[in-house]
């Protein structure tokens, strides 16, 4: 028995709604390591208050990666950041193909996603010409202003 994409999605949702920042799972020879906000981002700035809130509410908000730090910046790559706080969508409509996939080429004015703010759809553009190397923003999830959505290797 191996993990399907759906299983992984469900495990990710469990992590999102939990109090934990990392999850390490090994079953049937499959190793799965998940961290909130992307690899290497589980570090949060130290909290100034001595006691954690008594009752952690459910469902928990996705715990943060500090914006802009969600991906380990890689040599020569450009971070495409969200121009707004809102819900990030990778495709124009549910079920339609994503605006861009890893490996696609983008121009500075290429639409790479939609940021929804109170039912108003705002386009997010690449801002740089090059090749999409990694997509970091998750479809349908909240992104902050300035949060990294994807990495592009510029021309």
């Amino acid at each position: 028995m191996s993990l399907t994409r759906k299983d992984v999605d469900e495990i990710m949702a469990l992590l999102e709604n939990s109090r934990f920042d990392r999850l390490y799972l090994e079953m049937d020879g499959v190793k799965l390591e998940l961290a909130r906000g992307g690899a290497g981002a589980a570090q949060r700035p130290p909290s100034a208050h001595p006691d954690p809130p008594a009752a952690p509410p459910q469902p928990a908000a996705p715990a943060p990666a500090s914006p802009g730090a969600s991906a380990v910046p890689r040599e020569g790559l450009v971070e495409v950041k969200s121009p707004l706080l809102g819900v990030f969508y990778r495709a124009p409509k549910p079920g339609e193909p994503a605006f861009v996939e890893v490996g696609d080429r983008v121009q500075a004015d290429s639409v790479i996603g939609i940021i929804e703010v109170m039912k108003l759809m705002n386009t997010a553009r690449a801002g740089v010409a090059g090749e999409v190397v990694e997509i970091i923003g998750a479809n349908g999830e909240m992104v902050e202003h300035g949060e990294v959505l994807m990495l592009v290797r510029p021309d």
Partner: protein
Amino acid sequence: MPALRRILIANRGEIAVRIIRTCQKLGIESVLCVSEADRGSLGARMATRAVCIGPSAPARSYLSVETVMQAALGYGCDAIHPGYGFLSERADLARMAEEEGVTFIGPTARQIEAVGDKLRARQEAIAAEVPVVPGGPVESVEDARRLGQEIGAPLLVKAVGGGGGRGMKLVEDLADLAATMDMASAEAGAAFGDARVYLERYVERGRHIEVQVLGDGAGNVVHLGERDCSVQRRYQKLVEETPAPGLPPATRERMLEAAVRFAARLDYGGAGTVELLYDTTRDAFYFLEMNARIQVEHPVTEEVTGVDLVAEQIAIAAGEGLRFTQGHIALKGAAIECRINAEDPSNDFMPSPGAVTDVSWPRGEGIRVDTHVVPGAAIPPFYDSMIAKVIAHGTDRADALRKLRAALADTAIEGIKTNLAFQRDILAQEEFARGGVDTGFLARMLHKEPA
């Protein structure tokens, strides 16, 4: 309604820190909205989580109703605390929150609208039998004579099209009224294209006295005493205190009752402040406006009552109503607050943003400092210049003043210019020490000894 579990704080600076502290005390999670300029702020480090809602310019961050609402929904917050300023008295945010099923920690959109419009608020005051500044429009000299008799001298002839001090004439003797009115009307026609004028009682020596109220939203209202905020420079409050020194007890009682009546008539829900102008010459008071939010100067009230006003705001928003009656509120001693601003008194109070290289806040019994400024803190140029409030609570006014003087002497802020020395100067004035100064006090002091 279940207790609130996670609150979105749509504000910054010291009030964000203040609200987070109460959230921590109550075991409520806090999600703080920050602009790019405030990512490294103390509030951002203290909150359960900070989310960047936009660029430094407030229009696209702290003033964006949709963004704040989206943040509340997207991060699973069951309530929004707007603090003061920014979106705190925006009926559209309160209404949107109501529609989205998120609790707005403050009055209803309708209540915000009722007090937000000056003319409407004046009508509400009249309906609640709260005195307003006597006056009204006049169309003829005959009209003016009649109304002038009613109002009494001195009075002001004001142009309907004027404002901000323009188009105003003082009448000290009613015998001059007809001539002054003709002149004012002609001048108003020339200057504003509108010759209409109205008369208003002139308050020569006024004091700004306000009453803190809490309402449950169902007609029950309590007051938590008054605050005297007469030390002002160009309508900006600098020193606030409670109780108001030297107010005749019967007048004070009538002011407190008037404020409660005004709020009760609106079925006011949450914390609010009824601002009154006290006419020292006539021993009378008039309604100015109501502020439908927590106020900057709320700590002096908290010090003498022992009530955490933010906690009460949260309780009322959560549907718990008022957790005490008027009889439970006892005022102990006196408290005075100084606002510390990042501004340069020697250069016409120009804002002085920058990095605070070092800061040392006072400590001690009866001393409280509400601030977000720690060593290394950035004071961005985009926002209000108020960076801290130093509050002293004493057994009486003299004790509080002594403590506050000592506290300011113990305060040091490096790297930016502040009004700290100016505030020490105010506290050193003999007139201030006597108590009960009017709103002209600071202008007279500045005239006497230019900063």
